[in-house]
């Protein structure tokens, strides 16, 4: 049995996505966790011993920034080789899960609780790729995913 601590990359864009990611912290115990998001100030939300990697913010409407963000995430994943990639969205998480999957990581998408009436667009698209595909609203869950196991608040 492999008792090595799994390396977990927890990545999200800013605002509510980051706040929700932090509320999952107890799930990352017993793992080597690396956090990644889009504002340097977010480091102050973490313990001093927590590792934080800054990446550029981008949305699907900004091609150039998106390409730069993708390159940063590819570099991060090749360097880190995480066992698990988990994200609460949006675009950085989508990219990290797609690439993480190609590199053999287990992947988790938790759609933001802000999407109460339908899944986010990236949440819909990631379904085919994420190993664990989750929504935080029971009425949005489906028999073959996304699944509902609770919410961050």
């Amino acid at each position, binding site marked *: 049995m492999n008792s090595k601590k*799994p390396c*977990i990359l927890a990545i999200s864009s800013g*605002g*509510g996505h*980051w*706040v*929700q990611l932090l*509320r*999952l*912290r*107890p*799930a*990352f*115990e*017993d*793992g080597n966790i690396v956090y990644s998001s889009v504002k340097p*100030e*977010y480091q*102050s*939300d973490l313990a001093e011993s927590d590792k934080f990697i800054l990446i550029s913010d981008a949305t699907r409407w900004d091609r150039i920034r998106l390409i730069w963000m993708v390159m940063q995430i590819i570099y991060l994943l090749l360097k880190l080789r995480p066992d*698990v990639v*988990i994200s609460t969205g949006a675009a950085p998480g989508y990219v990290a899960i797609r690439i993480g999957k190609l590199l053999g990581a*287990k992947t*988790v998408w*938790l759609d*933001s*609780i*802000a*999407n*109460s*009436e339908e899944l986010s667009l990236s949440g819909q698209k990631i379904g085919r790729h994420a*190993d*664990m595909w*989750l929504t935080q*609203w029971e009425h949005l869950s489906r028999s073959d995913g996304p699944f509902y*196991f*609770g*919410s*961050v*608040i």
Partner: protein
Amino acid sequence: MAFDRLVQSVDCWIKTQPSAYGFAQVGPGGYQPANMEWIEFASPDLFRKKLIQADLVIAHAGMGSIISAQQYGKPIVILPRRANLRETRNDHQVATAKHFSDRMGIFPVYDEKDLPEVLASVPIGRAMEPISSYASEELLTRIKGFIHS
């Protein structure tokens, strides 16, 4: 992102509350209040400090604001941004306001003209139990189980 419709309404309202002190994060290029202290973007540390000091939070219906207020046990009045006013890309904030309206400490308002009335009805200063710092037990267990499987 600026939300002038909200900041302007609160700025007007607070003028009628002589004993109230207001602090506003107005966003880049946002409306500059005349009756409140303001900053374009508050660092997480400053935001936390102001949140701890606050008796009431008034914000857009964004999950970051809602969760932060709830984590510190502060009542929050939320005004959703609207797509038709080009305040955001779609009306998910309106949906958020509706879905969270039955939670303790969350007070939605859908029209900024109703803000003074809603603000008058909020139990400001009454101690509220902060929510836990973490997600639901089951969600955490499932994710942790998957990580170690």
